[in-house]
């Protein structure tokens, strides 16, 4: 990017709310049903039908408002946004316009250069449209209205983002948050989290905003980053070539890695918003907000800070653990069993061993075949020296494959307990020294690593049951003792 310019980026994100029924009708919102099987008379806008607002959609908006520290309007209202499109049955979308349910608030992102607060302008409730299917039906398009009426929360940021990376960081943080508070499943492929980006550039130092172009419908964080990067370069190139930027709506083509114009300003809609006369003002009282406030979980930022301060976790671990509610819940449940003094160990096992296995199997933490209690048992048995880490991995493998036995039964049945017989270990150490003269010579010559060969040999001889640290200590003691004995001749 040309250093003489800077980019100004704002995002608009459509979050599909996790309700059982639609925002204004009692039809189901389940994804993936056969076309038009989840369409009520209201959704199809049959003559005479009227909307009735789903309470749960409002609850979701309240939760979001609380989570981002926004202002929850005690009175908000719905408006009609008019345009003709075959997937929009009423010829208007019920949305909110001049009185959104949430205004203000913000979200903090962590960049290489430190924390940055991204302000939110508003978040409002609206209904989704259906889908146009562009396969060819003898020159016609097909319309599926299953999605029509699905509740959305449209979240609009202030133009506080300056780079594609920041935009992606923000989108990810928001994505984490909406799943964290349980209002969205966050499934990007299914369109549960759709991002539009408003991008403009201006000469560094200029205070007025440049003309913006809006990139529509980005459904991955990677595409978001790529599309904004492309768009910034394109706009700077245009400006340096002396052209002016025209306001436009563009689409990102991931195959070609570029944006193309979908609609210019001349074709811009005149949406003719006005208050929906079928819906009265939405009144939210203090009591309702308090109920939601009490039920809101500890938020990622607060938990992250607590994990660093109270659990003494490294920032990286705390960050990773708070990227997903399920992961955090699993971790906290395990630590609740072990006590905070074993927090680091719980985090290590969870983030390395368990997540590793889950990633390999493409499963989420909620699908882990292991309970937080089992993780805690494992961590405690290692900590008290009953088993080695290696044995811990065997325990984990057993539980992973569905073994129902308790930690102690498994240790006994699989003979995983660590060797505590010092005399036996000393004997094995002496045997190893005798059997590996080359390693001993190398060690004495100053090659520290050669010790590992000897440790390995003792561990093997103990069938993995010796404590590696103890073996190492005894080996060193033995080698020093040999050193100090007088030469034979």
């Amino acid at each position, binding site marked *: 990017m040309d250093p003489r310019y800077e980019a100004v980026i704002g995002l608009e994100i459509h979050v599909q709310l996790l309700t059982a*029924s639609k925002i204004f009708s009692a039809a189901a919102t389940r994804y993936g049903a056969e076309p038009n099987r989840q369409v*009520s*008379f209201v959704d199809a806008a*049959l003559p005479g039908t009227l909307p*009735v607002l*789903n309470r749960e959609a409002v609850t979701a908006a309240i939760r979001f408002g609380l989570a981002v520290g926004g202002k929850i309007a005690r009175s908000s209202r719905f408006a009609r946004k008019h345009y003709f499109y*075959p997937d929009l049955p009423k010829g208007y979308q019920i949305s909110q316009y001049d009185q959104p349910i949430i205004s203000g608030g913000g979200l903090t992102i962590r960049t290489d250069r430190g924390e940055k607060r991204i302000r939110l302008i508003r978040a409002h409730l609206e209904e989704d449209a259906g889908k*146009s299917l562009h396969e060819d039906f003898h020159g016609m398009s*097909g319309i599926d209205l299953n999605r029509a009426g699905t509740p959305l929360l449209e979240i609009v940021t202030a133009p506080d983002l300056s780079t594609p990376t920041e935009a992606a960081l923000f989108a990810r943080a928001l994505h984490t948050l909406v799943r964290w508070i349980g209002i969205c499943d966050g499934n990007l492929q299914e369109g549960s989290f759709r991002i539009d980006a408003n991008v403009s550039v201006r000469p560094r130092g200029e205070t007025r905003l440049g003309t913006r172009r809006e990139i529509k419908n980005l459904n991955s964080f990677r595409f978001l980053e790529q599309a904004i990067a492309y768009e910034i370069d394109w706009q700077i190139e245009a400006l340096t070539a002396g052209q002016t930027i025209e306001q436009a709506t563009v689409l990102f083509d991931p195959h070609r890695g570029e944006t193309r114009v979908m609609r210019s300003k001349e074709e811009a809609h005149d949406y003719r918003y006005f208050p929906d006369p079928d819906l009265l003002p939405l009144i939210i009282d203090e009591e309702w907000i308090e109920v939601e406030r009490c039920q809101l979980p500890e938020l990622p930022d607060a938990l992250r800070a607590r994990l660093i301060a109270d659990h003494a976790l490294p920032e990286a671990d705390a960050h990773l653990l708070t990227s997903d509610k399920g992961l955090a819940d699993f971790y906290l449940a395990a630590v609740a069993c072990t006590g905070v003094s074993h927090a680091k160990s719980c985090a290590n096992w969870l983030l390395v061993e368990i997540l590793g296995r889950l990633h390999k199997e493409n499963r989420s933490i909620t699908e882990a075949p292991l309970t937080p209690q089992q993780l805690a048992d494992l961590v405690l048995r290692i900590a008290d020296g009953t088993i080695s880490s290696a044995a811990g991995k065997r325990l984990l493998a057993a539980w992973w494959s569905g073994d129902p036995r308790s930690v102690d039964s498994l240790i006994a049945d699989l003979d995983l307990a660590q060797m505590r017989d010092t005399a036996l270990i000393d004997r094995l150490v002496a045997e190893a020294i005798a059997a590996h003269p080359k390693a001993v010579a190398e060690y004495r010559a100053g090659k520290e690593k050669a010790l590992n060969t000897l440790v390995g040999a003792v561990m093997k001889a103990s069938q993995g049951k010796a404590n590696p640290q103890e073996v190492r200590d005894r080996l060193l003691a033995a080698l020093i003792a040999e050193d100090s004995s007088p030469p034979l001749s």
Partner: protein
Amino acid sequence: MTLDADALDHLAHLARLALTPQERERMAEELVAVFTLLDRLAAVSTDGVEPMAHPLATMQPLRADIVAESDCRDALLALAPAAEAGLYLVPKVIE
């Protein structure tokens, strides 16, 4: 209110109404006459008057989040001018 041909065309476009040239002429005349009536409001002082969107001053009732509708696709598509494979059919939608 004045209404030139472009303005009327724009309105007809927004409202998706085709008008023949004769209809356009007659419509323009009638709209100008109607707006002579509507423009009477311009002279009314309404400073500080809160717009009234609705006769009811009550709040919106809310519905419990319960799925209470079953599949009625056949009934819906039976009403459609063109349908196939469970879909409404329309002239090609260009994205």
